[in-house]
């Protein structure tokens, strides 16, 4: 009789309880991060210009999050997301300039416009993979650059200057804009969190790991690849809209620059392209680097390159993945212990760093 109880050898309830607790630990840490971001302007040392800088960092993070959907989760390397950034920025700028619409509408419109173009691009590039995809997307960024340089409505290098930003009719300054950015970042992060754990996220990762096996499981390659392109482009488009609005100036000099595309790809790869926190860490790194180097700002190109090579050599899955590894191993051990019933599941612990890689979901 007692034998029968031990035969399955696995304490399912304890494992489930432990997993649930680890998940809520992750959630608490992420919520803490966002609360910190929200109350940051209340600290006495926080100055107005810092709000603007912080918003620019968040914009980089958002752009990198867009890249991570395509490059990290779906395995299609994009060197052209600067194109989607530009589409978002110009969509927002034109709407403000000619229709004087609210920035909330502009942000949504930037996402929709970039998402639509992303969908078309996904269809056009349906047969591309690997380095060919990289070259194709690079070409797309140049294509967008050529359009904004030469089509009259975009006013080329002269650029489009925008009036002060308004939310629901109220004019907002840098700090107000910072709050808007944090809220957008929160919503997008929540969306990605939900997405990558859903059946859709599973389909993306399946296509990344083996297209053949994915199709044998019933994953419609055309649909999910195009969907990944659309979502990825839309998120970067939202970042673009924010970028245009905060600088209140959109010109081809800025948006035909291929370095935008490279920067956000570097941000994604350095942080960890298939992790929830990777784009946050990587985006912050790339955006803040010139700032810290101050007079040596030109040196940041070199440093970014060195860091990128180092990451690719020593931690190809990104910094977050490496930081999270010991925490994840610790949690696995705890789960194993709980499964075999050698230790009671209830035991206080700190599993901080795991959140960096988002519950160990490569």
């Amino acid at each position, binding site marked *: 009789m007692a034998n029968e109880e031990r035969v*399955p*050898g*696995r304490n*399912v309830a304890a494992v489930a309880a432990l997993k649930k607790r680890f998940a809520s630990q992750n959630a608490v840490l992420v919520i803490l991060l966002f609360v910190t971001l929200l109350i940051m302007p209340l600290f006495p040392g926080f100055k107005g210009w810092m709000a603007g800088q912080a918003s620019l960092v968040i914009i980089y993070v958002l752009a990198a999050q867009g890249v991570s959907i395509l490059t990290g989760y779906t395995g299609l390397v994009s060197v052209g997301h600067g194109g989607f950034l530009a589409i978002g920025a110009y969509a927002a700028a034109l709407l403000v300039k000619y229709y004087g619409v609210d920035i909330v509408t502009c942000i949504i419109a930037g996402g929709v416009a970039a998402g639509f173009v992303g969908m078309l691009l996904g269809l056009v590039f349906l047969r591309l993979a690997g380095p060919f995809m990289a070259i194709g997307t690079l070409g797309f960024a140049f294509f967008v650059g050529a359009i904004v340089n030469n089509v009259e409505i975009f006013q080329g290098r002269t650029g489009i200057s925008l009036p002060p930003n308004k939310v629901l009719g109220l004019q907002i300054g840098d700090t107000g804009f910072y709050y808007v950015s944090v809220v957008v970042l929160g919503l997008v992060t929540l*969306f990605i969190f*939900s*997405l990558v*754990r*859903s*059946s*859709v996220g*599973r*389909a993306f*990762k*399946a296509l990344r*790991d*083996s297209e*053949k*096996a*994915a*199709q*044998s*499981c*019933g*994953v*419609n*390659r055309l*649909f*999910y690849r195009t*969907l990944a392109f659309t979502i990825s482009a839309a998120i970067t488009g939202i970042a673009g809209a924010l970028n245009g609005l905060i600088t209140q100036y959109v010109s081809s000099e800025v948006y035909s620059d291929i370095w935008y595309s490279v920067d956000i790809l570097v941000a994604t790869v350095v942080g960890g392209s298939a992790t929830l926190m990777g784009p946050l860490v990587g985006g912050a790194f790339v955006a803040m680097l010139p700032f810290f180097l101050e007079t040596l700002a030109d040196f940041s190109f070199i440093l970014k390159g060195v860091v990128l090579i180092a990451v690719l050599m020593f931690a190809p899955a990104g910094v977050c993945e490496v930081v999270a590894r010991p925490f994840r191993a610790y949690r*696995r051990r705890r*789960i194993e212990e709980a*499964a075999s019933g050698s230790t009671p599941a209830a035991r206080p612990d700190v599993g901080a760093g795991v959140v960096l890689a988002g519950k160990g979901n*490569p």
Partner: protein
Amino acid sequence: MASHLRCEDIVVRFGGVVACDKVSIDVEEGKIVGLIGPNGAGKTTLFNVLTRFQDHDVGHVYYRGEIIDRKRPFEIVSMGMARTFQNINLFGEQSALDNILIGAHRLTGSALPNIYSFPGARQRERELARRAGEIAEMLGISDVLDDPVKSLPYGSQKRVEIARALASNPKLILLDEPVAGCNDEETAELRDVVQRINRELGVTILMVEHDMSMVMNCCEYIYVMNFGSNLAQGTPAEVRSNASVISAYLGEEAAA
């Protein structure tokens, strides 16, 4: 008995090479059917034709009487047909559980409610996870569900692949060399698994296999291919004593 999966006069040409030359097979509902033949006989090509991973030039494939020549590979599984691959083709970085859940993809419904994890989708996810647990138990891989599959031993990976195929609730499973590279013990275990899937779940099975102990002990009917054509067919006993089969495997003199 009704025909479950049938193909008629299938011809596949790769340039000048004829990989399949008027091949016909008929898999009866509820049976375990084997497809054997020397290397290069065209077995895997035929397998890919049946699962629509390979276009054929001539002939038709019927699933329960319906022509499926124009179906796309991902549509096959929603008809009730799942497959495994010759060399294990798993999503290596992901856990065994995630692999099985991807197998259940056709049961997850449309994309939008899943992205936003609407209550209905969440309910379904729980149900799928529970079923994945049951399948894992049947295949004896419950204790490795959370491990990334690339870290698992070969035999377990084979089981995960079969579990993934089972997760779509198939009526027919095509196994491409299920015991290739397995030792005798693993082979015996997998044979048991395959027979249980057939008996307990009522799933029809078509397998390509080189391991004769597996084929002869497991299959109720066997098709033999050689040089891209049908060579023989029959029960294991009939095939074993068929002169042309022996000569194809062992050479003319052995048969004579």
